[in-house]
């Protein structure tokens, strides 16, 4: 204390501390600090005392008990992973199942020279460069003490050969494992998804969800599609074995076993035969098709082309194949049905018509002049039919797909009314389907624009922008799923079901069924006569409108609407399919339902860069309906593709 008459920063103390009073304050502060130091020391000693007491309790008093426990602790808990649930289609056809096979696994940390070991193994069991690449990738993603498969699905002969030589390979083991297999390969790949090895992200999610313990012993987890969204049903409950181990840690015998509870099986609403037909019709193109049963919301087919083989992903995909898939211009890994957002084009018109009738706008009761264009704010909005139809009424507007009529209708309704009405059918919001990663699409509105743009000049909604919203262009963009869902809701008289791909969850032990739905999500308060009028209009598209070519001699009644979505702005020039680069051509849309009286199926199909809706998409819809309603299989797909080039006749342009 004596050495330090001043305390505080020495540089600024001297004059201040000449006052006696402050010196006294300093002394007080000093003794207060010293009291705190003593308190701190006491605190430390007290808590260390608590620790010491705890150690004394455990090691002195309870030592015998814990010693016995440690002696008995030759019992190790070994997790036993459950077998994963099986996925079947609505008719019980297996889409994903497990089979047992042998794998050759390496624990890198127990091996000195990995390359040499793999080379030596190669003399017993063929290890392809692909296997090596895949193993290398797995190794980068895993910890060294994990056992990683170098070769999967060994033959019996290979197993025998390795077993005879296994003494030469410490750290290499043969393991019997369950493998996931998708017998349909590419078919429905986006829908079913796949499982893959558990990575850091999955671990984090599992820890967050508090289910990490249930995954001890599991190596795979659902990554996308149904495999991911129903993970908690499919996985099952991990059991464990109490194993007695010897001094070297080797298992001697099993003392007790709590069996794992296998995962629940799933029965889909999807009909794999219909799915196959639709996939084949879209094969070789980029596109999507979603078919829904309107009365339940059950998804009948869910196609996104091109697809991929999910079996490649199960045990780690090799980097080269992954690169090819990931970098392909056709984006085979993109789930177009769920995540592809496209302007709906004229397939938006039926919903505009519905909105007009419900709002009882004056235009509904009028016949307007149709010169082939509509002038708004000094700008000329062109109709796809040059010269127009002369005059246009509400009922004819759907049949021939008049742009002029819907331009005017949109202006009359105004953007806020349109946005409000459309949101009732889940446009611009997720439908809530039981698949992960759904995109909401864009339902434009003044409010949406305000949020979407940062620049104040762009935030304002201009009335001119409403015009092209009427024909499904402008900012409009929706997923094929949303289009199918809206169609199903419309033809189901406004009773909206949440679309779902799984019908039932089946407990394989008890056979107990859990129905996923159906329960109406909401009922839209629409007048029945209005709905019937729109449905009549859509039926007329098939009988004598833009869809008539594709549906000639159908043998059942159907309704539908063609659509053509602009990919590339023509800036006033005339669109000519042949002169525009293939990937800038228009997207071809078709929405349909059948039969008209009591629709059993509603669907939306899009063919990217397919040109006119009537040209590419409508024939596909026709063949899908033919198969679903009549059981008629489409002929050779090559012949079918040839007809796509055919241009619609002059009277049926409209799109």
């Amino acid at each position, binding site marked *: 204390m004596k050495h330090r008459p001043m305390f505080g920063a020495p540089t600024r103390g001297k004059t201040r501390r000449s006052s006696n009073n402050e010196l006294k304050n300093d002394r007080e502060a000093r003794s207060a600090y010293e009291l705190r*130091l003593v308190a701190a020391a006491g*605190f*430390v000693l007290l808590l260390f005392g*608590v620790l010491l007491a705890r150690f004394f309790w455990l090691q002195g008093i309870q030592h015998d008990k*814990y010693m016995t426990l440690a002696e008995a602790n030759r019992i190790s*808990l070994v997790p036993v992973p459950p077998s994963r649930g099986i996925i079947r289609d609505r008719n019980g056809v297996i889409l994903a199942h497990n089979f047992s096979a042998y794998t050759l696994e390496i624990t890198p940390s127990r091996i000195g020279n990995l390359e040499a070991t793999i080379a030596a193994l190669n003399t017993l069991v063929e290890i392809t460069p692909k296997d090596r690449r895949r193993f290398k990738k797995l190794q980068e993603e895993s910890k060294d003490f994990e056992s990683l498969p170098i070769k999967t699905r060994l033959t019996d002969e290979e197993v025998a050969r390795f077993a005879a030589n296994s003494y030469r390979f410490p750290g290499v083991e043969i393991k019997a494992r369950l493998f996931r297999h998708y017998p349909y390969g590419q078919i429905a790949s986006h829908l079913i998804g796949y499982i893959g090895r558990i990575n850091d992200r999955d671990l984090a999610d599992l*820890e967050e969800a508090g289910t990490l313990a249930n995954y001890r012993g599991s190596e795979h987890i659902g990554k996308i599609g149904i495999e991911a969204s129903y993970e908690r049903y499919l996985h099952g409950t991990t059991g464990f074995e109490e194993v007695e181990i010897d001094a070297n840690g080797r298992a001697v015998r099993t003392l007790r076993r709590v069996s794992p509870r296998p995962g629940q099986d799933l029965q889909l609403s999807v009909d794999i035969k219909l799915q196959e037909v639709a996939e084949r019709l879209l094969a070789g193109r980029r596109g999507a098709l979603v078919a829904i049963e309107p009365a339940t919301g059950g998804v009948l087919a869910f196609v996104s082309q091109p697809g991929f083989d999910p079996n490649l992903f199960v045990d780690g995909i090799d980097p080269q194949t992954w690169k090819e898939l990931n970098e392909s211009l056709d984006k085979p890994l993109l789930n177009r049905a769920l995540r592809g957002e496209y302007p709906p084009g004229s397939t938006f018109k039926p919903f505009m018509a519905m909105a007009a009738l419900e709002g009882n706008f004056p235009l509904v009761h009028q016949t307007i002049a149709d010169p082939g264009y509509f002038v708004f704010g000094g700008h000329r909005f062109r109709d796809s039919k040059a010269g127009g139809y002369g005059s246009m009424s509400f009922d004819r507007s759907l049949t021939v797909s008049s742009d002029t009529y819907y331009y005017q209708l949109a202006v009359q309704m105004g953007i806020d009314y349109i946005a409000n009405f459309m949101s009732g059918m889940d446009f611009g919001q997720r439908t809530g389907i039981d698949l992960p990663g759904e995109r909401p699409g864009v339902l434009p509105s003044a409010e949406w624009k305000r949020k979407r743009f940062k620049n104040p000049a762009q935030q304002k909604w201009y009335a001119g922008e409403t015009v092209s919203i009427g024909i499904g262009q402008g900012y409009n963009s929706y997923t094929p799923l949303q289009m199918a869902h809206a169609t199903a809701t419309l033809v189901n008289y406004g009773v909206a079901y949440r679309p779902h791909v799984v019908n039932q969850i089946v407990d394989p032990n008890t056979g107990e069924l859990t129905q996923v739905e159906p329960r109406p999500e909401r009922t839209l308060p629409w007048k029945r006569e209005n709905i019937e009028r729109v449905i009549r209009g859509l039926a007329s598209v098939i009988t004598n409108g833009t869809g008539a070519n594709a549906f000639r001699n159908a043998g059942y009644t159907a309704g539908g609407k063609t659509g053509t979505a602009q990919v590339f702005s023509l800036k006033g020039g005339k669109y000519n399919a042949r002169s525009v680069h293939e990937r800038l051509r228009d997207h071809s849309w078709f929405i349909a339902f059948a039969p008209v009286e009591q629709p059993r199926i509603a669907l939306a199909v899009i063919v990217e860069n397919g040109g006119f809706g009537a040209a590419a998409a409508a024939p596909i819809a026709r063949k899908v309906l033919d198969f679903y309603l009549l059981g008629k299989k489409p002929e050779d797909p090559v012949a079918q593709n040839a007809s796509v080039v055919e241009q619609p006749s002059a009277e049926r342009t409209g799109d």
Partner: protein
Amino acid sequence: MIKRLWERFKQPIDPWLLLFTLLVFVVSAVLLYSASNQDVDRVSDKLTFMGISLVLMWCIANIRQQTLMRLALPAYLVGVLLLLAVEFFGVTSHGATRWLNIGITRIQPSELMRIALPLMLAWYFHLHEVHLNWRHFVVGALLIVVPVGLILKQPDLGTGLLITSSGFYVLFFAGLSWRLIAAGAAAFGGLAYVVTHWNLCINILHEYQCRRVATMLDPTSDPLGAGYHIIQGTIAIGSGGWFGKGWLAGTQTHLDFIPERTTDFIFAVFGEEFGLVGNALLLLLYLLVIARGLMISHGASTTFGRLLAGSIALNFFTYVFVNMGMVSGILPVVGVPLPLISYGGTSMVSILASFGLLMSIQRDRKLMKG
């Protein structure tokens, strides 16, 4: 010439603190060899970290107190900015976003905050020492809340609590009212009671954190998960008895029953192999480190030095207590390493950096006297 270099080298070093640190290092290396099943690679890794950390400690010990004070505010601001950066561009691993990728390596800004926060607070209270009033404590509390809030968001409850405590210790030595301390302790105790006994999960606790608390109360409820750690850790310590099973002879350890036995649970290995006597000696060794820290605080020439040294010493103590308490089953499992002993570089680097600060404070005292 060599003599002068030697003088220069040892001038900033506090021999006592260095001696105790080296003794803990010896324990650490010996223990890690056993815990890692005689993995020489891991031990040599650990020795490398020790070397790097000692160099860092020496460098920091050379910094003058005046410079440290000038560095306080920038260090604090950089720490907060980095925590904000983690919030927006952080690397996520095992469910928490704690790391920042800076090209060469990943850094964990919360480790920097462990030093920067006490530094900042000590400087702040030093600045206002003459006319200290309650407003300064409010500002001090805010200086704690900002970084801790960001750390809790990562989420990292363990580090958040430890950094709060390091800041609190500064306030404590600066003279925070006893009444407030008592009220705070009561509130914290009440909160802990509510969480543990009514199993109530409040927003700031993630579900898994709640479950860990619940598991501590009844380890058998989750035998494959966190309960397993507690059960096996307790068995390991208890079976060690008075004198332990001997080095390399712990059955729990070598039959793989102790999870994370080289990192957070390494104390279970120590307890099993060296027994109650070993535990007591280890506690004594840690106590010497803490006592030296408190003595440096007592001898410091400035308020800044007193507050900083006191906070560092008590914070070190907190790490020891929380880790040993968790492994022996009287505290919930939070990811806190045993200081200087657990395998892992980051925590060792930041602890030795704080020892460097202690030495700097100690050296400046000598200079003032002379």
